[in-house]
């Protein structure tokens, strides 16, 4: 499953013009006819989001929240989304070769946005039978978001260095 999610994520990133970024994580066949066929062998581990026991445990522990009438269900989704949201951008952080510290910083910076993203993502997960399809579409969605953030980030970075220099990603 993880590999499929990574493929979807990478292909959407390529569609959005972030091919350079994707090439940090896998070989890209530039002669292929579309973004999905362009995906080559991974050069870093193809993990979309790390399997988090903490997340599953929290999910199970928070399930009784659904007992509360009316507010229980949304509250449950938001609290579990708090954990699930940032993990949706794990692949993006990996492609950028962020350190653990930088990753935490990024997650904290958009904590609230990730929580909302995660809540919607988890609400979709409750649809019986379609949960795996929505896992994939959420990966596409998170890639669309990552591409947008990536553009904002690179334009910010290139604004601070001389325009003559081509931007090179060097997180070290």
């Amino acid at each position, binding site marked *: 499953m993880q590999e499929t999610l990574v493929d979807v994520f990478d292909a959407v990133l390529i*569609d959005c013009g972030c091919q350079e970024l994707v090439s940090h994580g896998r070989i890209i066949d530039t002669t292929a006819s579309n973004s999905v066929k362009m995906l080559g062998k991974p*050069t870093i*581990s193809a993990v979309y989001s790390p*399997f988090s026991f903490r997340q599953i445990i929290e999910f199970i522990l928070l399930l009784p929240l659904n007992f509360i009438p009316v507010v229980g269900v949304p509250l449950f989704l938001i609290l579990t989304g708090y954990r699930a949201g940032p993990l949706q951008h794990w692949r993006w952080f990996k492609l950028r070769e962020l350190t653990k510290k930088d990753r935490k910083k990024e997650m904290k910076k958009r*904590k*609230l946005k990730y929580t909302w993203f995660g809540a919607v993502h988890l609400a979709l997960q409750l649809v019986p039978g379609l*949960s795996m399809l929505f896992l*994939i579409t959420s990966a596409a969605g998170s890639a669309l*978001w990552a591409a947008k953030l990536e553009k904002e980030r690179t334009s910010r970075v290139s604004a601070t260095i001389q325009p003559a220099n081509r931007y090179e990603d060097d997180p070290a």
Partner: protein
Amino acid sequence: MAPASSRRYEWNPIKIIAGASWLYPIKGIFYFVGHPRFWPLFKGRLLPIILLSFFVYAILFTFAFLPQVAVLAIFHGPGAWINGAVLTLGEGSAVVALLFEAFFVDVSLPVIRIFHG
């Protein structure tokens, strides 16, 4: 949740609406459905997932749904049916996720490939 840290992003009202993060999972659905080149990525997984989740939900709704609704009904009347359904669906999705991770993990994990050159 730390609303203070994302303050910087919330000044521009246009940006809030256009870039609302909670919309992206929905945008993803339309993107995936609207671009047929992505469909083959899902096809291979479709059957085992549908079978697995069908069995899990069938079992849960047969044996776990009614008792939970009964317990819920003690605390809040007719709303128990809705809360009970969400509760059971949540349990089902946790079970499916765990089972899927346990039995259908990709054999060709690239980690192995890297270590073997």
